[in-house]
Each structure stands twice: as C-alpha cells, then as structure tokens.
C-alpha cells in the first residue's frame, strides 16, 4: 500500500517539476552562450497566461504551447538585442522586463482568471509503464513530461558531445578566441538566447496547462527566480540543473505532504520555505560552506565535488564587441 503511495508521489514530483526543468535548461543554454536572461519570472508568467488563453480560445494545446514559446523567445531576444546592439546592461533590461511582463500578464490575463480550460492528456507509454517501480514514476506521464526528458538528454549531448556545442561553450567562455577561430559570436548568442527563451516560454505553458491548471494573478508564484537559482546550483550542467529541479520539486511536495501533520507550524513557513531553500542551496555551492567538503571522507570528496562545484561561463553577462 505504502509502495503505491511512494511511486504515486514520485510520479507527481516528476510531473510537477517539468516546467522547472524546461526553464532551467533553457536559461542554462543562453547563459552558456554568455547571455543572462534575468526576465524569467516575468517571461514565464506572460507565457503561462498566453499559452492558457490561446489554448482556451482555440481549443488547441499545440497552438497554446507554440504561442508561449514565441512569447518566451521574443522577450529573450529583446534582452540579447539591447545588450549586443544597444550596449545596455543585461541585468537592468532583464529586471525591467521581469516587472513589465508580470504586469502585462495580469492586465491582459484578467478575462481568463479562474476559468476552467484544457489540459495536457495523460499518455502512458505501453510496455515501459509496466517496468516495476520506475515504470509508473517515469512513464505514466504525458507528452510534456516526455519532452522535458528529451530536452535534458538532448541539451547534454548537444552541449558536451557535438562540435556545435563546443562552439556554443566557447562563445560563453572566451568570445575573443571563438571569434578569432571564425565563429560568429553575436549571431550564436542571438540563436541560443532565442532557443533558451523558447524553452522558458514552454515552461510557462507547461505550468498553466499541466501543473497548476488555468490562470490567476501572479499564477506561477516566483518560479522564474527559482529556475534562475537552479541554473547556478546546477553549475551550468544539464544533468545537475535537472537534478536541482527534481530535488526542488521533491522537497516542495514533501512540504505539502508534511504540512497537515504539523498544524503548529504556521503556513507562512511553508510559503517562504522555497526561497529560504534557494538561499541555502546557493550557499552550499558558492559560499564558504563549500569548504565543508574538506571534512568529508576522502573517497566521497570527488563525488560531492562533482555535484556541488561549478563555475559560471567566464564571459557571462559581458558584451562582445564584434568588429
């Protein structure tokens, strides 16, 4: 009995973490190319609203996701454009867009608040779903969740095992050297920012059409900031970013499972917990806490090091003057 409870919980953790996976991997891609898109929290809100609204009006989930991806890509391109062409600070533009897009989503989304609408249909994979234990957890899901698996694996292969991925990383690490080798630094930055933004937009639609269905004021509740933090926590590596997203999802559902058992703990603690957790996670990977590693058994150190250490792309947030 308790075994089905565990698999069911894990299944819902995987499902509800899909938006965070998509947004985290998306942002990781453009940060690997050297562009910070700080606007995530606003982009995801607007994409979630636009995706739900279009799916509701047209009855087509495909159109909903497509529009959400276009919204995410356009906002991201605006960040890249204002940095590359107009010399503006990526963080400043991203911050302004965060607030602006959040307000836009509230304003335009008002007619769609709390309206019942379409959602992604379950699609268990025949055969795979019967694998004991992990079958239900991983393969009794839907297309969006399977897409999130694909995004993790493909981004890893692309980034770490292809020539194109090598070029992408060089643009984010040493744009001067990349340029000297004949790589169009700024063109690549535009392309990967658009791809990353499209994934962020898909994350928004995945939230409003698959996790917390529908639309309401500030519907995604700070998810963009969590995704940005998970990219840092994940050390800009696809698997670790995904791990961070799943860990976060697991802790969050653990919280909501435990909450009824501890009526003495004020509900506000559970509201603030994700963000306190975010700070703790960042402390673990970047602060003097990281030195605690030295107290671990010698054999464990390389493993812990591989999971916790990571340095940002060297040219992250810096313009490259292409002549």
């Amino acid at each position, binding site marked *: 009995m308790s075994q089905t409870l565990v698999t069911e919980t894990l299944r819902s953790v995987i499902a509800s973490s899909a938006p965070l996976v998509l947004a985290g991997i998306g942002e990781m891609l453009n940060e690997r190319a050297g562009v910070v898109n*700080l606007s995530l929290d606003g982009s995801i809100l607007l994409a979630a609203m636009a995706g739900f609204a279009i799916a509701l009006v047209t009855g087509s989930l495909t159109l909903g996701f497509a529009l959400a991806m276009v919204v995410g890509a356009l906002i991201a391109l605006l960040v890249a454009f*204002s940095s590359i*062409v*107009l*010399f*503006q600070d990526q*963080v*400043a*533009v991203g*911050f*302004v*867009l965060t*607030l*602006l897009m*959040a*307000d*836009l989503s*509230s*304003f*335009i989304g*008002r007619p769609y608040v709390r309206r019942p609408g379409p959602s992604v249909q379950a699609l268990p994979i025949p055969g795979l779903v019967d694998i004991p234990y992990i079958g239900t957890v991983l393969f009794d899901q839907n297309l969006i969740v399977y897409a999130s698996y694909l995004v993790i694996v493909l981004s890893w292969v692309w980034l770490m095992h292809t020539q194109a991925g090598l070029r992408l990383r060089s643009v984010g690490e040493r744009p001067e050297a990349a340029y000297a080798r004949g790589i169009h630094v700024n063109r690549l930055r535009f392309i990967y920012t658009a791809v990353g933004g499209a994934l962020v937009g898909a994350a928004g639609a995945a939230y409003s059409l698959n996790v917390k269905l529908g639309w309401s004021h500030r519907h995604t509740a*700070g998810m963009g*900031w969590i995704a*940005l*933090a998970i990219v*840092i926590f994940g050390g800009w590596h696809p698997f670790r970013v995904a791990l961070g997203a799943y860990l976060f999802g697991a802790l969050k559902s653990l919280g909501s499972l435990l909450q009824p058992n501890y009526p003495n703990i*004020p509900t*506000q*603690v559970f*509201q*603030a917990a*994700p*963000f*306190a957790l*975010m*700070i703790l996670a*960042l*402390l673990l990977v*970047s*602060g*003097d*806490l990281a030195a605690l590693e030295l107290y671990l058994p010698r054999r464990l150190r390389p493993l812990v090091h591989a999971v916790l250490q990571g340095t940002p792309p060297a040219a992250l947030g810096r313009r490259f003057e292409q002549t």
Partner: protein
Amino acid sequence: MNKQHPALRFFLGLAPMLLTFVSTTLVLVLAGANPWQAYGNLIGGAFESGAKVADIATAMVPLMLASAGMLITFAAGLWNIGVEGQMIAGALMTTWVVQSITAPPALMLPLTILAGLVGGGLWGILIGALRTWGRINEIFAGLGLNFVASALTNYLIFGPWRPPGGATMSGTLPFPRAAWMPTIGATRASWLAILLAVAAIVAVYFVLRDTRWGLVLKALGKNPQAAFRMGIDTRRNIILALVVCGALAGLGGSLQTTAIYRRLIPQITGGYGYLSQLVVLLSGLQARWVPLVVFFFASVQVGSPRLELRMQLDSSLGGILQGSVVLFFLLVNGLRRRIETMRG
C-alpha cells in the same frame, strides 16, 4: 564631435514617452478598452482634487526614501533587489517598538523613526553577509529574503500580533496616537515624513558627490579589483552600502505604518521597493533626477486604482506604464550610443 543635431537630441529625449504612449495605447485597444477614457481616468484619479495631490505626496515619501538608498547601492555596483525586504524589516521593527515599548508620547515618534532605520539596516547586514561571506549574488540573496520578510509579516499579523478580535487581512490593532505622524490638515500627507524624504535624497546627493565615502563607493562600483588593490576594504564597504540603503528604505517602510496605515498590514510596502529600482534606472542613477521620476511614478500609482473602479480594467496598467517608460528609456539610450559610435 559627438554633439548631436539639436532636433535629433530633442526627438531622442521625447522618444521613450512617445513609445510608451503608443505601446500602452496598443495594449488598451487589444484589451478592448477605450484608451482615451483610460488615460482620462488615470489623470483624473491622480490630480482632480487637493486630497489626490496630497495622496501623491504621501506615495512619494517611501518611494523617495527607497530610491535614495538604491542610489547608494547602485553606486557601489550592487543590485540591491532586497530593498523591498528592507522596507518590510523597517515596518516590522517599528511595529515591534510601538507594541512593546512604553515611552513618553513625545519620544514615541523619534523611536519609531529610529526603529525603521535600524530594522532596515539590520536586514542590510543579512544581505551583505550572504553577499560577502556566502558569496551569493546579492540579487538572489536579496530576493530570497524579500519572500522571507513578507512571510514573516503575515506570520506576525496572523500569529503573535493578531488583534484580540481575531486576525484579518486588515492587519494589527491601530497604533496609539502618540505613534501617528502629524498630518497636514485633513489630508493623509505628513509634513514630517515629507521632510525626512527630502532630507534623505539631498543627503545622498551630497554624499555621492562630495564625500570620500562617495568616492570609495564609486570606485567599488566601477572596478572592485582595482578598488581592492588601492586598499579599500571591499567587504566592509559592500555591507556598509547595503546597511545605509536598508536604513533609508527601512525608514520608508516605517513611515508606511506610522504615517499612512497607522498599523501593520500585509503587503505594507505596496511594492515600492521593486518600483524604486525602476525609479533609479529611469533617473540614470543620478540623484538630481530622482524627485521628478518619483513624482511621475507616484502620480501613476495614485491614479491607476480608478481604472479598476470605473472601467473594470486591472490596475496593473500603472505598472505597464512605469515599466515601459524605463524599458524604452534604456533602449533609446542605447540607440543614442549606437549613433554616437557610428559617427565616432
């Protein structure tokens, strides 16, 4: 040789406003609303009576204080998104002092001011410690703490500080009269609060322009490595900048409780912390432009609720106006630089 044609300069100066007007009108049309009616309500809601103008002055106070603080942290090259939490911390500290300290009535107001400064400053130490020893980017440290601060507010209002009649969204019991900021006539504007806000922005202007510490902050902001090699204690000055910013913002939060609501309510800041960052960006990080921008933002803030009352539009249109102006200001500035480099 970089002198631009006067007509071009004039057009570029006006362009952010024009672009904002065009894009906001477009959003209104898309939402199926009459743009002229919306602008009419916005302007009427902000300026139609003396009481409304007093409301603008009232809204300017916390925005001005937080913006003054943000000038300090921006000068030091820090993006103190945590200013929102610092405002909340000032309000919490003030409420705590009012509820737990019995002082002669004459001392009450100075104590609340002090509490606001201290509360926000302490929150600044928290952000600064995470930034320096924790090596967490101040954006994430501050933002995380903002959520913690607002959860703490809700906890206190619905827990230890709830009124005897039971907790509601309307907040704690009202403060005793001794802790009310004096107001001008029958309006909500408080001359003492306005005076404090003016003093803060003037002080920050001179600190950044004329003092040694102002120079240290600017050195830190321009090139932290070079500043460190010149013998500047970077950790200490980063924390100090966050503390000073927090003290000013905390005073702003404190005045929200003592001058406006006369109690602690959930969302006591009204989002002014986030808004102050837009103010400072639109001021081009220059103290002398802050009062004008604050006036514009406060007018929009006071005018926009009427869109909700009269036209069933979401009052977030105000935020769209404010955000668009800043976005287009940044983009047009970039365009100007682009034109300059193409000539140069």
